[in-house]
């Protein structure tokens, strides 16, 4: 019986029912294989959640390093299994907390991390030798983190964690004082090379499509941009030729969103693993299969959460978390249900962690690996998403690669249009949102508890700490290290040994960033109406 045509969220036509006919071209060994075996479609590791469930990793931070440390300790006690640090917007920009430019900006969109002392305080009492940390920044704060770890007697060769560093997720922020994309990519490649030497277990970059997805890209556009950006970094290293490509890509990590279309999101993660395997082995001829494992952190999609009837978001987040689990994610952040209302309260943070724990321990979905493998529908969607992703990658490469496409304005034009398109579809009802454009309640809205950071106090505290820090540091050593860093930024040398040296003798993040940006000049992000 024929019914009305249905489409997935990314516009793939969906049939009434899927049958063996839809997967007849699938070659099990070549296209799927078992988990831990190429092409890794079914999972990067042989035991997956039976061996170890995904890492529960919530990206957080607020007010000051001191207050954030309390939060991290609390999350750890509740059973979070990975740390994840969200620096505030001032830190993202690369200016210190006492800069007049950021008078109103401290500690309300993350935490300020200006110095090695801030990093030390943020991780005070936390077992960073055993628990991995994600740092949502691009390199210098990781250098501080490494210095803190060294000081605590931890062998950097064993240190585990991830630095964000991705240009497509950064570009979204549309913030001032950033270098142009090629400068951004250069420091990224410097950082990857340096990490592969000093901290080989560390993931030196996390290619991250979460932000672009949240702005309105669909599932295969998300993957296409994600891989085009990863490829651009590998191409950069190919041109530079400083370290072998297998060493360069070995610790690449990835981060995607989990959006609303349940099966499409599962298929997306499965397709991503096969695509990355093909890029690494077929395109770059890298032999070691360990370099071709797509390891991914998945976060529920903030753009799907609503301020109306906030508890509805609980349900959205649970489904999105389940999609990430069934897709085989290595690490998951279930959002706070109150994301559209405020920074998470203690209660919503607890609930996020519990959402993941309930999926892991109560639902039984971890009992076997890739439980949807072999589903006519899911395999068919996986194939379709893969095919569409390759086309999208090619389109970006035809523009000269991701950094060039950013430089030329394509990326920002696209991202400007996507939220407008989405809003038009919400207005027209094409995208249904329960409680917003369908079943909108006429009753007085119910209230949920809220949490408020204290940005005014945070600024004073940070500025005072910075003043003391600058006073205390060895001025001659600092000046000498900064001079060497500036020279490195203006040469072809890898800058990170100099960043490491500078932060150890008291260079602030703002000072390091300025040295990096000065070498390339500021690139104004081109978002406009």
């Amino acid at each position, binding site marked *: 019986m024929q019914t009305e045509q249905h489409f997935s969220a990314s516009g793939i036509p969906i049939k009434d029912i899927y049958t063996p006919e839809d997967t007849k071209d699938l070659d099990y060994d070549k296209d799927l294989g078992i988990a831990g075996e190429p092409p890794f479609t079914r999972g990067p590791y042989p035991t997956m959640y039976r061996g170890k469930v995904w890492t529960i990793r919530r990206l957080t931070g607020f007010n000051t390093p001191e207050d954030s440390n309390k939060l991290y300790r609390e999350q750890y006690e509740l059973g979070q299994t990975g740390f994840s640090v969200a620096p505030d*917007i*001032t830190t*993202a*920009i690369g200016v210190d907390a006492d800069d007049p*430019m*950021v*008078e*109103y*900006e401290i500690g*309300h*969109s993350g935490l300020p991390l200006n110095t090695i002392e801030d990093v030390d305080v943020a991780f005070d009492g936390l077992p960073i030798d055993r628990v991995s940390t994600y740092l949502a920044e691009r390199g210098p704060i990781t250098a501080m983190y490494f210095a803190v770890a060294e000081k605590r007697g931890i062998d950097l060769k064993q240190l585990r964690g991830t630095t964000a560093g991705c240009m497509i997720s950064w570009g*979204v*922020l*549309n*913030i*001032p004082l950033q270098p142009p994309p090629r400068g951004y990519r250069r420091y990224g490649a410097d950082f990857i090379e340096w990490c592969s030497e000093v901290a080989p277990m560390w993931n030196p970059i996390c290619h991250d499509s979460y932000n672009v997805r949240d*702005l*309105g890209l669909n599932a295969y556009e998300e993957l296409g941009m994600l891989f085009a950006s990863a490829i651009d970094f590998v191409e950069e290293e190919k041109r530079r030729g400083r370290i072998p490509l297998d060493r360069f890509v070995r610790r690449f990590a990835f981060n995607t969103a989990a959006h609303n279309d349940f099966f499409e999101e599962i298929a997306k993660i499965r397709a991503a693993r096969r695509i990355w395997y093909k890029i690494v082995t077929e395109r770059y001829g890298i032999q070691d299969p360990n370099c071709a494992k797509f390891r991914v952190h998945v976060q529920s999609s903030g*753009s799907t959460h*609503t*301020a*109306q009837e906030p508890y509805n978001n609980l349900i959205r987040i649970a489904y999105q978390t389940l999609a990430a689990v069934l897709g085989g994610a290595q690490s998951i952040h279930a959002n706070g249900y109150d994301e*559209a*209302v*405020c*920074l998470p309260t203690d209660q919503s943070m607890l609930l996020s962690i519990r959402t993941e724990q309930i999926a892991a321990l109560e639902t039984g979905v971890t009992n076997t690996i890739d439980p949807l493998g072999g589903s006519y529908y899911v395999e068919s969607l996986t194939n379709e998403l893969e095919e569409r992703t390759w086309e999208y990658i090619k389109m970006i490469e035809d523009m000269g690669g991701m950094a060039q496409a950013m430089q030329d304005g394509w990326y920002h034009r696209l991202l*400007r249009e996507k*939220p*407008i398109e989405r*809003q038009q579809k919400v*207005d027209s009802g094409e995208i249904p*949102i329960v409680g*917003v*454009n369908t079943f909108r309640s006429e009753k007085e809205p119910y*209230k949920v508890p*809220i949490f*408020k*950071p204290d*940005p*005014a106090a945070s600024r004073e505290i940070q500025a005072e700490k910075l003043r003391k820090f600058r006073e205390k540091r060895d001025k001659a050593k600092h000046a000498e290290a900064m001079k060497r860093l500036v020279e490195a930024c203006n040469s072809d040398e890898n800058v990170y040994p100099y960043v490491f040296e500078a932060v150890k003798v008291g260079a602030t993040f703002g000072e390091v960033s300025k040295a990096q940006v000065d070498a390339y000049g500021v690139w104004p992000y081109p*978002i*406009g*109406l």
Partner: protein
Amino acid sequence: MDESKVKILMVKAGLEGHWAGLIVVSNALRNAGFEVIYGGNMTPVEVAATAAQEDVNVVGISSLTANYMLTVPAVIKGLKERGKGDVLLLLGGTIYEDDFDALKKMGVAGIFTPGTPMEEIINFVREKTSAKVK
């Protein structure tokens, strides 16, 4: 009322990166016939100076972080200093309900949280500006 005579400055007062809502609302207001100046990220002083220079009727501020209780008063102060205290001031984003009263007392005319239909914002601007603009 001639909507094309109503001039609106749309900004993020500060540096936060969540600009999608600002773009969406700016676009909807422009499509509704208003003259929209998209300011993007500006400091409160820049917002007030631009509002005065462009002689706008409306200033729309978007905030998805908790700094609006610092930036909004700074914008209002700047507007008053420039003789633009009568501007229709709108605030959108993740605004805490228990701040609504204080914000209104300060002079914020309309507060719009995520999920507000575009029509509601457009109608609000139409109603409030029809008396002021001849």
